[in-house]
């Protein structure tokens, strides 16, 4: 495949970027859920 390095670089950037966003949103959700559960059970 010609210009393979460019193709890989471009796809990596996009896929890693999107993956990071999905991971971040999920991780934050789990953290917030835990805090809320803790707060509500402490009432």
């Amino acid at each position, binding site marked *: 495949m010609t210009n393979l390095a460019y193709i890989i*670089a471009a796809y990596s950037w996009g896929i890693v970027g999107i993956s990071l966003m999905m991971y971040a*949103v999920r991780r*934050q959700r789990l953290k917030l859920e835990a805090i809320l559960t803790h*707060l509500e059970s402490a009432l």
Partner: protein
Amino acid sequence: MQQRIGQGWTQCLGLLLYVLLLSLWGYALIGLGSEEHQGDVYRIIYMHVPAAFAAFMCSFVLFVASIYGLKRNKHGQAVLYGRAAAEVGLAFTLITLVTGSIWGKPTWGVWWTWDGRLTTTFILLLLYGGYLFLWSAVSDPVLRTKVCSILGLLIFADVPIIYKSVTWWRTLHQPPSLFQGGQGLIAGEFLSLLLGGIAGVSLLALWLIWQRGINLGLQKEIDTQLIKKSLRY
């Protein structure tokens, strides 16, 4: 709490879109043949163009949230979706610019040029960034909503300019290949895959805004509860 967070299937939806996109890109890299004028490097189109459309679509969500923010003048949940849209929009604009630059080097011969399309897209990046900075800079929630909502309208206004830039002005960037009135500028299989990519990434961007918006709402809820608790003592 379950009501606020939503059912588990909504989170699976995001994962499903993600997996579908990965397979689409896998096919774009391995299954598809090469292109007449650009050889193999044209395949970047399946990352670059969907990211651009997603960035545009984020500005529309931001627009709606900004209208809401200006009308009701409250720092409610809608405004949080606006902030989420700016974050996701910033990310996809950055992906658009970087993948575009990587595509430009082997095809145009340059990583960058200040033509109409590239410059207005770069401005979009600055605008999204400015929105987020403004958000953290203004402490008063009412003022923040107002100011950010106005910027949200500006961001939405930039998008048609970006889109039309290649038509209104002379640019290095190619004119539009899509939605040009049935001219068949993109050959069959290339086209369906591109449309699929655009739909997939746009839906994923919407899902990201949705989930991030919920997170921001939960964060606010937690802050409110903590304040309530500390006031009791």
